[in-house]
């Protein structure tokens, strides 16, 4: 998924796993930076 999750005006890369893990790699403007988990156990069964 792409969306500006950080609020800096640049869309960030987000991955969702069915296990409820959401990972975001924020955009630096010229690449996607370090990936980190933003929430866990959210969306299981959706």
């Amino acid at each position: 998924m792409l969306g500006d999750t950080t609020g800096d005006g640049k869309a960030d890369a987000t991955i969702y796993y069915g296990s409820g893990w959401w990972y975001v790699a924020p955009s630096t403007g010229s690449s996607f930076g370090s990936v980190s988990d933003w929430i866990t156990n959210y969306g299981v069964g959706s």
Partner: protein
Amino acid sequence: MKLRLVLAGFCAMVLALASLSTTTQAAPSFGLQLPWPAGTQHRINGGNGYNCGTHTGGDYYALDFAFASGEAVTAVAAGTVATKIFSNFGYGNHLILDHGYGYTSLYAHLQSFAAGISVGATVIGGQIVGYADNTGDSTGDHLHLRMQKSGAAYQPEPMSGVTGFGNYGACTANPTSPYWTSRAPFDAQQLSDASGDAAHKNDAVVFYAASGNWQVAYSNGIDFVSPSTWITGHGYTSNRELLGDVNGDGKADAVVYFGSNGSWYVALSTGSSFAPYTLWKTGHRVGSSDHFLGDVTGDGKADAVVFFRQSGDWYVAASTGSSFGTSTRWIAGHGAGSTTQMLGDVTGGTPSRADAVVYFESIGGQNAVWYVARSNGSGFDPYSQWIVGHGFTSDRQMVADVNGGGRADAVVYFGANGSWYVALNWV
């Protein structure tokens, strides 16, 4: 305008995602939808090891779903009809769809085929292709679904955003399978600014098809926090679930589409919940194959846009702020047969208007071709080629402004190794 290809290389992400992935196969370059009409449910009653079944070889990952005789079977993705056979043996009456690049899906033991299904015909994902039964080598009414890639068994996951169907290898007698609801592949988890915070941070929004419940976890810029249910029973049995600011108040609203009559229902965001839903439009439009919310008119309110894959027709019902207006055709023949369709402001400037973008895996002897039809506020201008050679065999194609340049860039994702490639949109 020039386009610069940038490898958005983030090895850390590749490594992190690879270590967490449980499915090593690459997904096809399209989403898969469970093979029954959107909004309805079926469960598994057999597979390799499931109920001690014996699917092997090229059928290793094949799944049996419980169907009653005559119930509709739908295509897992767009493709062409490669095989249509009437038989009393083996797979019985069965159909094979060719999805391109070696991917096929087989639907076995059918009672009959849907109207218009003949070898060479094109179908869209979710289209009814036949009706279930018990023909051929079968002991009861069910659908046998098999996917293959280049002739080898292929695990058809995720479908409708769901993974974990199989029980491959281990014999489990009479397991209890959940009921799975079919829906378009990418609606269950989305990013959008539902809360309407000053920085317009995108929140994580989840839709549960089985209940019509929507949950939101706020973005605080570094995490998604405080997940809670914002509305219940909104969109149960709907065909599409979308997010967009349809009333122009800066907050993304929850919108659902029902294909049976082309109706759109809206639940407006209050910033901390979705208000009770109301009907905004009917008849926009039965038979359409893809659906979007985007501000194509440039008035700050997201409009309801539908696309017909076979004709390439795009229809818009512009938001008035409290309903969607007359459904009118904005362009014809843009993206007929295309792999993916998107809305995004690739033009830039003020006002910001969403343009209609399509991606072809192959067309006219070229691979990975993007076309855009730019919005003029009351229609889409004639389409033109935008990019060539960006994203061939990718699993997802998207448009979004990833560098803050004020125009949507073209982004593709490869699931096999977690790579993202960006074609920045420079003027």
